[in-house]
């Protein structure tokens, strides 16, 4: 599995700020894996995603030290337009991602491809296919401005996926959605994983992340404090010192340890915890 994104001693400070937002980041992200980025607010999660997409030097300005490589090529050498095809980016606020110039969801999904000059027939095929995948195929004729938060977020996903980017960066997609819509979003992320795309999600809902992500990166006050498989990272005590939220099943396991009845293996998902607790009950 090749390395698609690499951070080489990256530090970055936003313009007009005294303190650097992120300091000395070093990490390598492999293609086809799903990474969860967790950490407190203003700890550097969003800056990490922006750096990956090249928004930090190109759009926000500020000072960048070290270099970010995408598919081996330094970000600064990438053309603006190529970047938006290479890396898809979905944002936190669903309603800010509606273009406002299209009157139906069908055309809204096609907008990205229209900008890139994709042929009409190919566009129609891709839109229908992606709309089915994202469960908005029943909303194709609705006006995008009249959609609910969850529907808007799914349409935003669809219009980015239509560009067929291999890497998708998602910055807190579910913070304004209710639990049902959050599950829909994570189902989409699951489908992306099955298609072999690299997915990077910054998110607060840690319980959902634990179920869907292969690897977790924990970032707090500007530096990576832990990186590895979900099981290792969540058990790492440094997370609790830096105030990083961990899944409830993990805190349950830790409390069970204090109460003298530890689990044999650190659980990550609810089903796993229930299975282990049942075994423990029969064992007693």
């Amino acid at each position, binding site marked *: 599995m090749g390395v698609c994104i690499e951070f080489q001693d990256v530090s970055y400070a936003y313009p007009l700020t005294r303190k650097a937002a992120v300091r000395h980041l070093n990490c390598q992200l492999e293609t086809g894996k799903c990474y969860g980025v967790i950490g*407190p*607010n203003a700890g550097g999660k969003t800056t990490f995603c922006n750096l990956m997409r090249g928004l930090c030097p190109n759009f926000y300005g500020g000072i960048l030290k070290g270099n970010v490589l995408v598919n081996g090529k330094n970000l600064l050498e990438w053309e603006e337009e190529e970047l938006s095809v290479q890396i898809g980016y979905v944002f936190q606020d669903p309603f800010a991602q509606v273009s406002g110039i299209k009157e139906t969801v069908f055309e809204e999904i096609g907008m990205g491809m229209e900008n890139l000059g994709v042929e009409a027939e190919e566009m129609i095929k891709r839109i229908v296919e992606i709309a089915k995948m994202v469960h908005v195929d029943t909303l194709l004729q609705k006006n995008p401005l009249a959609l609910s938060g969850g529907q808007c977020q799914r349409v935003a996903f669809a219009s980015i996926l239509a560009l067929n980017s291999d890497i998708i960066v998602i910055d807190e997609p579910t913070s304004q959605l209710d639990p049902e819509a959050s599950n829909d979003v994570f189902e989409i992320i699951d489908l992306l994983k099955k298609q072999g795309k690299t997915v990077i999600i910054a998110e*607060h809902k840690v*319980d959902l992340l634990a179920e869907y992500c292969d690897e977790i990166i924990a970032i707090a006050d500007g530096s990576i404090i832990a990186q590895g498989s979900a099981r290792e990272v969540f058990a790492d005590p440094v997370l609790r010192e830096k105030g990083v939220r961990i899944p409830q099943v993990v805190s*349950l396991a830790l409390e*069970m340890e204090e*109460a003298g009845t530890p689990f044999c293996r650190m659980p990550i998902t609810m089903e796993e915890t*229930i299975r282990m607790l049942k075994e423990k009950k029969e064992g007693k």
Partner: protein
Amino acid sequence: MAIEVKNITFSYPNSQVTAVENVSMTIEKGERVAIIGQNGAGKSTTVKIMNNIYKPTKGTVTVDGINTKNKTTAQIAPHVGYVFQNPNDQIFNDDVTKEIDYVLRYWKLSEEEIKRRREEAIDVTGIRPYLEMHPFDIPLPIRKFLTIAVVVAVSPDYVILDEPTAGQDLWGCAQLRTVMDYLQSKGKAVLTISHDMEYVAENFDRIIVMAHKNIIADGKTKEILYRPDILKEAHVKPPLSAQIAQAIGIRTKVLNLKELTAAIS
């Protein structure tokens, strides 16, 4: 001293579709109540009728005996505070202290009174480190605490929190608990709409369940969260600890991880 809502019905001005049908409830002073239910069940509308943003088409709402029918929203504001989901709709000063002082000065309170309330609100919501920053430079989750500070400074008897935990991290949730403990110590009632079942189970002792535009249950948190039929009708999942407890057959009604650990061992 309570907010009494007597079988109110409401439909938006230019649509016959009713948002809420014949809802009744009473919120006593000092109570901590959470309203849960799926989006579109009428939660926000009911709460906006309570602080008189919307006037009910049928039924009446009285706040501490004052009927809201012939009162404007601003006249009810000193009694019922509302923290909105989007803080950007309210902030228009370029300085945190000016933002908190604005309403107090608008009501022509004395300078020391304004200063006392503002300092207390800033300490309770923990935004002192951000005083020099421009409100729109403060990260969004922390900017929400600025709007909470504004409501705390007004110190109404009833405080409504709309999805307070959306986008909050550990620090945010802890800060929210301090604010709620402060309001509890002042004997104020706290009413919230939330999908975060852990937050609801942890902090609220009464739950009102809403579905298809009216109330389908209203009772103690422990009872409601262990009634699978009600939660199913409202499309709401109980907190994780309750789900695990029921899955492995523990009878005691568990609300958080500590109780679950105790129950298991």
